[in-house]
């Protein structure tokens, strides 16, 4: 109501002035009727009415929102002031844009990876099932979150705490199109998946329990909304058409509601199929009935009123029952001594409102560290702007004094100064959004995932906008309030009498600015320590001996788009490797089942006659890889004893393997070549060790080098879904990549090539966290130091100008140059020392928090602490020296004539 009047007040004013005219006309009529002369009649009417302007003013004000009106005037005044000093405005807006932008960028990722709830019905009711401990069988996926399908069915049907228990598994499969084949991510889900999550269909229908009753009988698929829009141009007639996944036809029955991308954050499903279709998609990876094979991720929706703790208690009982049943299975009949360890598994329920995410597990800590880093940068930027504002406040003392003398109240002056800060902050916030958007793209580049497979949005959404707006407001409060309070404190009488350069004024200012310098020096010291730690960590990791030569190696995945027979695969992989070896520029080429440095590994118990488990181990075991001839040459891994595999062995009946030195050291001792072993425990040792190779890293750069066994790829051909090819090349890898692609196509047009990159890039991807933290912390630390130096220099320059006369007198009285320099430096010495002390203390306190991100060092590294203190001291000295030098050059005559 008030607002409507406010907007209409111009109109209402016109209305009122017509009304006044109407009154005057009527009064004039009356007066004329009484016989007055026209002139007298007019004056009498005006007298009777009083002052029309006054009446209009009263009514106009009645329709005003006074505070808003005044604020608007302040905004206009503020804008005018800022236009007068464009350099100042630019400097502050830039500082703020960097600070706010960095925060926006990091928050965009933090929000998506750590905070956002799944776009499903009541996400807080969701819980994920987790079990820690040995699986005693195969485990495919995140350790700790996988279950076998029979276990899922048992838990689903018997539990009393979930309104629904469902499961899913994201896998890669080929989508064969008219012009090209591509790998897409498929969600294999239980029939009740969408129902339990409460996700609706956008088109057609979603999967239901009937679709998942019997194996291989319901080849139906649901498309993810964005995938449907992008890959099928959002065609409305898509329902009923057929797509080929891993070569098998599936009928599209629906499109899911927009926004939903599955329960794996950062790894969205593009198509969903019933999990009972798994054998159709992966003929060699059926395992639907195998209770010793864990690969399915389980989620439940708690019944109303059931708490997570209650549900966990009930599910633990149920899981224990299930374990007892599994103990009756073949495996535990054969290996009864594995039972106690199996029963030591720890079953828990974890909240799953935000879905599951390998990304989150891996990036939670680094992202939180980053958010703190950018928070500190923002504080430094704020302090810097506050400093600039103070300097400006000094220049505006007279203006403020005059306004005060003319009757502006202190609160009005503060409001005016604060509104200027608000304008600056808003401009900084808007600019920060752009900077943030740009930085987010940079950040996503550090994530070790193919951008095509990870949908992290880099454009700010409403949540990010709200965050940025809140940060902007807080920023304005933070940097604007102190200078505004300080600026409005000017006593008009004193200031107006004074002239620039007098000794008395600016005392409070200098104190406040010294505090700012202390904060800036301290924070930049803290950031420098952080930068040092992260940079050295990265350096340490880069100098880890991987055991293979990462230079000049191209690697890529190869996978048939359709299902091949074992014989066909055997022939195809050999021809692939032999043909790739003929590509010009390729020096050596080989392939393996497992890809290096991805965090993924394949381990298994082994049997070597006469070898017992090591202390602390349950059994004799090793990491495994299956390789083709040429693999060791391609990676430059030395054969230290015996011989390599050769194509003559390929497809033969003899089972051959090589082992690494760690395995020899742990289990075999002298003369390993020629001994026999087997994969699996208590097996007939059917495999001959033909060679020993040098130690290499496997899944990660960190940690110790594991025991490794390299079996021939042909012995695992039945289970082979695809391989990673490694090619050692001569010349520019980028130029050879297309040749390799072409050659793969030439060998078999049905092969899908994926993730082609150099091995060096793969190492970088594995070190992405460290690279991200080290790169950004160095950048932020430098920025912080520069800002601190600028702030320090500003304060000292201010001090020198304000004390020119005093210094002049001192010089005139015989003070030497060094004495003047000492005087000026003495001003800031305490502030700097306090800042450094605070920064070092903070660094020591925060150290524990980042220790897990470090490698090969402690958080309290004396060298790095010393270097940071050194950098800050040198930078501070440099910043102080120029004003000090200028002060020492002050000519007493000039100084005293100054006024």
């Amino acid at each position, binding site marked *: 109501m008030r607002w409507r009047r406010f907007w209409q007040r111009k109109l209402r004013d016109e209305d*009122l002035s017509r009304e006044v005219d109407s009154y005057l006309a009527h009064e004039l009529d009356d007066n004329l009727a009484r016989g007055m002369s026209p002139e007298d009649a007019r004056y009498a009417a005006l007298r*009777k009415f009083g002052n029309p302007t006054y009446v209009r003013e009263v009514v106009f004000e009645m329709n005003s929102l006074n505070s808003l009106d005044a604020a608007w005037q302040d905004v206009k005044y503020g804008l005018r002031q800022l236009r007068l000093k464009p350099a100042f405005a630019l400097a502050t807006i830039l500082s703020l844009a960097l600070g706010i932008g960095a925060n926006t960028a990091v928050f965009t990722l933090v929000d998506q990876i750590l905070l956002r709830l799944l776009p499903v019905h009541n996400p807080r009711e969701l819980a994920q099932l987790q079990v820690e401990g040995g699986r005693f069988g195969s485990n495919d996926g995140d350790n700790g979150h996988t279950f076998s399908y029979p276990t899922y069915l048992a838990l689903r049907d018997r539990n009393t705490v979930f309104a629904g228990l469902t499961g899913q598994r994201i896998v890669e499969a080929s989508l064969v199109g008219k012009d090209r084949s591509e790998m897409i991510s498929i969600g294999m889900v239980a029939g009740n998946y969408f129902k339990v999550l409460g996700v609706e269909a956008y088109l057609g229908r979603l999967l239901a329990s009937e679709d998942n009753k019997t194996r291989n009988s319901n080849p139906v698929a649901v498309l993810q909304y964005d995938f449907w829009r992008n890959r099928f141009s959002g065609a409305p007639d898509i329902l009923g058409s057929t797509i080929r996944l891993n070569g098998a036809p599936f009928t599209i029955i629906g499109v899911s509601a927009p926004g939903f991308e599955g329960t794996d954050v950062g790894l969205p499903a593009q198509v969903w199929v019933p999990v009972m279709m798994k054998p159709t998609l992966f003929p060699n990876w059926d395992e639907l009935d195998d209770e010793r094979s864990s690969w399915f991720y389980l989620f439940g929706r708690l019944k109303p009123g059931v708490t997570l703790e209650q549900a966990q208690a009930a599910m633990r009982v149920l899981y224990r029952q299930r374990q007892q049943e599994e103990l009756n299975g073949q495996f535990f009949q054969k290996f009864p001594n594995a039972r106690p360890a199996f029963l030591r598994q720890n079953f828990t329920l974890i909240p799953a409102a935000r879905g599951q995410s390998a990304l989150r597990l891996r990036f939670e800590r680094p992202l939180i560290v980053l958010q703190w880093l950018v928070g500190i940068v923002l504080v430094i930027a704020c302090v810097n702007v506050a400093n600039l504002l103070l300097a400006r406040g000094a220049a505006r003392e007279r203006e403020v004094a005059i306004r005060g003398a003319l009757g502006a109240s202190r609160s009005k002056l503060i409001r005016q100064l604060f509104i200027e800060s608000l304008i600056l902050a808003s401009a900084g916030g808007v600019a920060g959004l752009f900077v943030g958007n740009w930085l987010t793209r940079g950040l996503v580049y550090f994530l070790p995932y193919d951008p095509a497979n990870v949908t992290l949005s880099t454009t700010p959404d409403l949540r990010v906008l709200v965050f940025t707006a809140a940060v902007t407001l807080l920023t304005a409060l933070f940097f604007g309030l102190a200078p505004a309070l300080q600026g409005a404190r000017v006593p008009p009488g004193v200031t107006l009498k004074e002239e620039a350069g007098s000794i008395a004024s600016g005392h409070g200012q200098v104190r406040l600015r010294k505090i700012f310098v202390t904060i800036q020096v301290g924070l930049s010291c803290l950031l420098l320590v952080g930068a040092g730690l992260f940079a050295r960590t990265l350096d340490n990791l880069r100098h880890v001996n991987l055991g293979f030569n990462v230079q000049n190696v191209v690697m890529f995945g190869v996978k048939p788009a359709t299902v091949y027979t074992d014989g066909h695969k055997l022939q195809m992989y050999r021809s692939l490797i032999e043909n790739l070896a003929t590509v010009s520029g390729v020096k050596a080429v080989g392939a393996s089942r497992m890809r290096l440095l991805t965090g993924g590994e394949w381990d298994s118990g082994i049997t070597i006659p006469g070898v017992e488990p090591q202390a602390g181990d349950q059994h004799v075991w090793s990491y495994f890889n299956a390789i083709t001839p040429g693999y060791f040459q391609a990676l430059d891994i030395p054969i230290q004893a015996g011989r390599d595999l050769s194509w003559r062995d390929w497809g033969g009946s003899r089972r051959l393997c090589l082992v690494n030195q760690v395995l020899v050291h742990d289990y075999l001792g002298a003369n390993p070549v020629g001994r026999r072993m087997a994969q699996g425990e208590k097996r007939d040792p059917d495999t001959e060790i033909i060679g020993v190779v040098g130690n290499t890293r496997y899944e990660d750069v960190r940690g110790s080098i594991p025991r490794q066994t390299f079996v021939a790829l042909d012995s695992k051909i039945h289970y082979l879904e695809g391989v990673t090819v490694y090619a050692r090349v001569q010349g520019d890898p980028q130029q050879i990549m297309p040749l390799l692609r072409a050659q793969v196509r030439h060998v078999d047009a049905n092969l899908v090539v994926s993730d082609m990159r150099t091995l060096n890039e793969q190492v970088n991807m594995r070190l992405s966290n460290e690279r991200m933290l080290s790169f950004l912390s160095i950048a932020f630390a430098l920025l912080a130091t520069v800002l601190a130096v600028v702030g320090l220099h500003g304060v000292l320059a201010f001090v020198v100008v304000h004390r020119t006369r005093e210094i002049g007198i001192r010089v005139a009285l015989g003070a030497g140059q060094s004495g003047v320099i000492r005087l000026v430096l003495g001003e800031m010495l305490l502030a700097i020392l306090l800042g450094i002390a605070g920064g070092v203390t903070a660094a020591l306190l925060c150290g524990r928090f980042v220790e897990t991100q470090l490698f090969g060092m402690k958080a309290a590294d004396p060298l790095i602490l010393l270097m940071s203190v050194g950098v800050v001291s040198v930078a501070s000295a440099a910043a102080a020296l120029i004003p000090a030098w200028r002060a020492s050059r002050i000519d007493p005559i000039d100084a005293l004539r100054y006024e």
Partner: protein
Amino acid sequence: MARKTRSDSRGDMLQGTLDMLILKTVLLGPAHGHTIAHVIEGSSDEVLQVEHGSLYPALHRLENQNLIASFWGTSENNRKAKYYRITPAGKKHLLRERSRWESLVQAVTQVLGPATE
């Protein structure tokens, strides 16, 4: 942030009285500002003896409070004039204020007692 407007300065009691007089005037039928001013002046030379202009902020305020409504019409002099009429809310308000006023007067009279020289 209700700041006292200048029209308030004559005191709440007087303002309340003026409101009542206006409402009472338009209760009889729609009237424009000039008429209202003269009617009030005629019935009470206490309140509106100074300037007729000060009536207008009061009219404006009453309209904002939905106690009266306005429309432009043609006056008895054949001139354009803004007419005010009372709304149902205005009638209720007048009734309420009137009884409050009467009880106030009664109370004051009781305190003062019979007029004695």
